[in-house]
């Protein structure tokens, strides 16, 4: 029976991962994510989880170890942030290409330059094209739920792709808050044992990690892409199963007070919760504003987005990351592309906010919405606005 507990979210994520009975955990600590692998190592040391915990010397080794373990048929797990994610970048591509269902928790932290350990989305966004399934948690409960869901999604026979669960570093990882933690029996019921496509076994040899010449590479890419796009169907099914078993609903884009909304705000991650307060206040003041909280980043939910923005005049997309030298933040870029072919679409305004852990507050959201509201009649001069930047 699920218990209502109070726990630091990073520790809760570790507990949730442990409930999924990973067999190999290879991880390297990095602020703000450290408590996830650290607590898992405690759980293994206490004998609560029978797993091989490999204390690797780098994140590159961590993901390599997970790839090897997954290739040998073991359920594998790791966790990292920021520079650690970049350090394992070359293996990320390989893990998804090889269809190894590794699960990873990312405590989103800004990429260095200047060195910054606080929250933004630049780490995962730098790896957005690499073929992993990506989900964003907005609070402790979603972190716990998505971690458990991630294993089931990754290991589904029609998916067999790695999954990362993103939670905002510090803003979520270091917060103690209430959440319902499922028990082992419930998770065992939800998550069946791992059955890989192929496992390295001297008695039944296979080749994993083959070479692909130019005349086959594109076909291999298409096969991978089709699988990733089709995984959305499986994700929705698994979210339905979750709702039936645990009573909590998940959808790719959660709409908040969007009925009759003329201006919509879109967020990813924990700032969406603060944004809800802004919407509440604006609605009280008679402003027809609504909020879209994106939970599924890859595969991108095109249909759900098109449906969610119907009828709105303006969509203000907030990005906690900037695509340098491009036309704004990754979410806005994705949204603009997703809506380009639509005959009727809202005017899109893009705000870059919260970089490097800068607080995003209720008043900021209200200000963004009130200024974006004119975007359908007065075209904004810039493709995006660096909100709140001094100078």
């Amino acid at each position: 029976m699920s218990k209502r507990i109070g726990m630091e979210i990073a520790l809760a994520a570790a507990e949730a991962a442990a409930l999924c009975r990973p067999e190999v955990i290879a991880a390297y600590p990095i602020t703000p994510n450290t408590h996830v692998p650290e607590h898992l190592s405690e759980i293994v040391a206490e004998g609560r989880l029978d797993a091989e915990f490999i204390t690797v010397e780098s994140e590159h080794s961590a993901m390599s170890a997970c790839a090897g373990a997954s290739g040998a048929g073991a359920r594998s797990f790791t966790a990292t942030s920021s520079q650690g994610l970049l350090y394992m970048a070359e293996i990320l591509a390989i893990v998804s290409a090889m269809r190894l269902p590794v699960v990873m928790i990312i405590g989103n932290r800004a990429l260095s330059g200047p060195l910054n350990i606080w929250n933004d989305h630049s780490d995962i966004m730098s790896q957005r094209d690499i073929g992993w399934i990506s989900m964003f948690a907005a609070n402790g409960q979603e972190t716990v739920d998505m971690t458990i869901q991630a294993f089931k999604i990754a290991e589904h026979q029609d998916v067999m792709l790695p999954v990362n669960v993103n939670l905002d570093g510090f803003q979520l990882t270091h917060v103690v808050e209430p959440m319902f933690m499922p028990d082992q029996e419930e998770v065992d019921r939800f998550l069946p044992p791992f059955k890989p496509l192929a496992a390295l076994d001297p008695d039944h040899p296979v080749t994993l990690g083959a070479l692909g010449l130019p005349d086959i590479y594109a076909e291999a890419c298409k096969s991978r892409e089709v699988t990733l796009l089709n995984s959305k169907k499986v994700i929705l099914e698994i979210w339905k199963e979750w709702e039936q078993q645990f009573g909590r609903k998940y959808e790719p884009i959660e709409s908040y007070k969007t009925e009759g909304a003329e201006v919509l705000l879109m967020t990813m991650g924990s700032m969406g919760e603060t944004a809800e307060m802004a919407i509440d206040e604006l609605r009280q003041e008679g402003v027809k504003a609504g909020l879209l909280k994106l939970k599924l980043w890859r595969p991108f939910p095109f249909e759900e987005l098109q449906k969610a923005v119907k009828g709105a005049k303006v969509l203000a997309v907030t990005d906690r990351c900037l695509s340098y030298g491009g036309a704004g933040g990754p979410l806005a870029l994705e949204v603009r592309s997703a809506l380009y072919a639509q005959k009727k679409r809202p005017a899109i305004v893009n705000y870059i906010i919260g970089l490097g852990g800068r607080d995003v507050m209720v008043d900021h959201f209200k200000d963004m919405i009130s200024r974006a509201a004119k975007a359908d009649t007065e075209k904004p001069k810039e493709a995006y606005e660096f909100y709140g930047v001094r100078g």
Partner: protein
Amino acid sequence: MAEKKWPEDWQEVNPGCIVFRPGSSRDYHTGTWRAERPVWDNSRCIKCGLCYIFCPEGCISEDADGYFAADLNYCKGCGICAHECWPLAIKMVEEE
């Protein structure tokens, strides 16, 4: 020469490009084109096995009597075995 079965359409590509059938590299005969091939003079051979160790293709094997020969399905005629054979038991002979 064994028949190669390559996937043509994207639907035929194995997931993750996994090769499920073991030993598939045996189907790829690398010895179909050669300028020269190695010939062993067993009267000079001292059965040291250096040719077997150095062959980059791994196609030299030991027979029941302890002498060595190359599997010509895979031998590319690189001549490393002849170069390494210090008793000079191996001679590279031109292919017709």
